[in-house]
């Protein structure tokens, strides 16, 4: 269902959605983050790219699995803490970030469904915003089977047409949101559809960064496990967690019991993000660490995204948002690394 929404009518629409918890990009000095919206007038979709992707809403950095304590008779008492019913809308989701959620869906779905993840996922509606101009100089979505106006994973896609949005509702949930404020939406005129196609076509041309022949990379990676290539590439790596924590598709986590009080015993079992870039990620209790240095950890990041994931899920585990490139303190550029992998050796 395609519609037109005047930009100045956006707050009115959002007002009709007050039964939902709403997130939208907000500016905090130099960075954009998704923040809860209290006043609809505050919504500003003139944003670039958020520091953290909406992954943090569906797969928060900290998730409480359950609370535990011991009663007076020393019997354990466990209380499950499934996320509350809280229908949520995220405004201003970039197509790459929405696609990223379809990838984490694969991981948290499948044979074993992660209840915590799916509880949040199923109650979240994603309202996307097409990128008329690349929101970051490091965008390369076209190279990883994405596009600046991709609809994958979204419920609604907005495209900026100057003083109005072209609104494409893509799922039942999307249609539902439009129906809550029917009078604000008008059918598109023939010219609008043309404008949309033109803007979408132009937006693709504006993406400058690309990885040529990426499909050659996965088979190439297979033979590079022992290569000294990784030592060279990782020379400047600092072993911080920026690239993985900022990544919309990285999903590794750690589980810990966090104790509040020992007598009486109370605490929580907690899931937090973890990253393959930290030395303790692979540390065995024997003291052996199978990935002892930063070269092996960089290799893990690249191989996971462009070989293991491809083999398992037939998808690159990368959507080309460019966050890892923008934020890397020492300028490690995944595009450059992949170019080198593709051209490596015979």
């Amino acid at each position, binding site marked *: 269902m395609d519609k037109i929404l005047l930009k100045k009518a956006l707050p009115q629409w959002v007002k009709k959605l007050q039964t939902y918890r709403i997130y939208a990009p907000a500016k*905090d*000095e*130099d*960075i954009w*983050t998704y923040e809860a919206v209290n006043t609809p007038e505050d919504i500003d979709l003139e944003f670039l790219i958020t*520091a*953290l992707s909406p992954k943090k809403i569906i797969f928060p*950095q*900290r998730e409480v699995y359950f609370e535990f304590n011991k009663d007076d008779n020393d019997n354990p008492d466990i209380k499950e803490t499934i996320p509350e019913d809280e229908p949520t809308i995220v405004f201003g989701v970039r197509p790459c970030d929405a696609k990223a959620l379809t990838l984490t869906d694969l991981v948290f779905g499948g044979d074993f469904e992660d209840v915590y993840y799916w509880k949040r996922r199923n109650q979240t509606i994603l309202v996307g915003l097409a990128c008329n101009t690349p929101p970051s*100089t*490091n965008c390369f979505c076209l190279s990883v089977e994405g596009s600046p106006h991709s609809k994958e994973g979204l419920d609604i896609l907005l495209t900026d047409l100057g003083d109005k949005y072209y609104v494409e509702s893509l799922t039942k949930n999307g249609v539902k949101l439009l129906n809550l404020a029917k009078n604000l939406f008008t059918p598109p005129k023939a010219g609008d559809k043309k404008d949309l196609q033109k803007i979408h076509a132009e937006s693709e041309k504006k993406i400058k960064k690309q990885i040529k022949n990426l499909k050659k990379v996965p088979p190439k990676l297979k033979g590079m496990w022992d290569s000294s290539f990784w030592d060279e590439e990782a*020379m*400047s790596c*600092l*072993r*911080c*967690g*920026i690239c993985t*924590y*900022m990544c919309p598709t990285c999903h590794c986590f*750690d589980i*810990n019991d*966090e104790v509040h009080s020992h007598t009486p015993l109370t605490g929580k079992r*907690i899931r*937090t*993000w973890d*990253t393959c870039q*930290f*030395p*303790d990620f692979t*540390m065995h*209790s*024997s*003291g*052996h660490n199978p990935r002892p*240095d930063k070269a092996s950890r960089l290799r893990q990041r690249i191989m996971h995204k462009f070989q293991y994931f491809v083999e398992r899920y037939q998808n690159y585990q990368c959507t080309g948002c460019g966050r890892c*490139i923008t*934020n890397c*303190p*020492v*300028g*490690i*550029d995944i*595009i*450059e690394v992949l170019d080198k992998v593709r051209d490596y050796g015979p």
Partner: protein
Amino acid sequence: MVNVEDLRKEAKRILKEGKVKYVIGYERGQNGLMPKPAFIKDPEDVDRLIWNPTCVHNLTKFLVDEKKRKAGEKKPDERPVGIVVKGCDSRAIIVLLQEKYINREDVHILGISCEQTGVIDEKKLANKLKGKKAENIELDEKGNFVISVQGGTIKVPAEELLAERCLECRANYPVVYDLLLGDKTKKKVEEPFKSLEKMESLSEKERWAFWTEQLAKCIRCYACRSVCPMCYCDECVVDTINFAVTADTTASEKAGKIKWVEKSPVPSENFVYHMVRAMHLAGRCIDCGECERVCPLDIPLRFLNKKLEKEAKELFGYDAGFDPDEPSLVSSFKDEDPEDFIR
């Protein structure tokens, strides 16, 4: 003026003569204007080396890396490493020498003077450019940065683009070096702790509100720790598993390891992490500003360290990173140290 050719010539010489294993310097980044660390092994590659006001990184962290790498090698190459340093970075080398973490003969220092300016702040530059892409940046004689962008140049007075720490710099040329490029005239800095004034004038409540808001943002990617040349501990209090675990470590020893900081990135835990880090850097931080630069959530971490730098100077007359033979701040004392706060 610093001529980058001189740097390349010296790098080529020491590589050719086999004096150093490799040279750590700056090269053009893939990603437009900002450079990235370069590791040059082949004398023919020295032309990759660059020097300009965008060379912000403190490369001395890679000396820590080198030492750790060497410790794991059976027959390590004992030759020194060449490294390009600015004034502030050289102070980090002084602290590493003072703490006997590295030896003077482990490192061949190619010092570069920032002369009367410093390096740029990437975020200030981005705000000035408003989406335009900078191709080059140079300093003219009048102290302006001349930025080349598509279809012209933009002139900006240096102070508007310089990193905050450069405005408060107390070492505009290297303190220790084997080769110095550029001028050795001390830059006059009237108020080396000016940036703290605003914070210090706030009330206790406001300061608490400020830090709670800032540290609540922390996602504990530990980039601030990772980039810091002074954070070289094999075992960090925030890590969930002890680095020093060996095959001989017993299960009860492992179970008994104290968890000082929980992994949940909540304010109470983030505070412990950042306060411990600040304490651990007291009298060691040389204000290279890297922790703040790398923070993906823009937490003004430099303030914490700067504050303790100021207190060390005011209370104990201590300046980190100028004299490798001086005892360190917390492993020394004077009879007249203040004790008016003690009951």
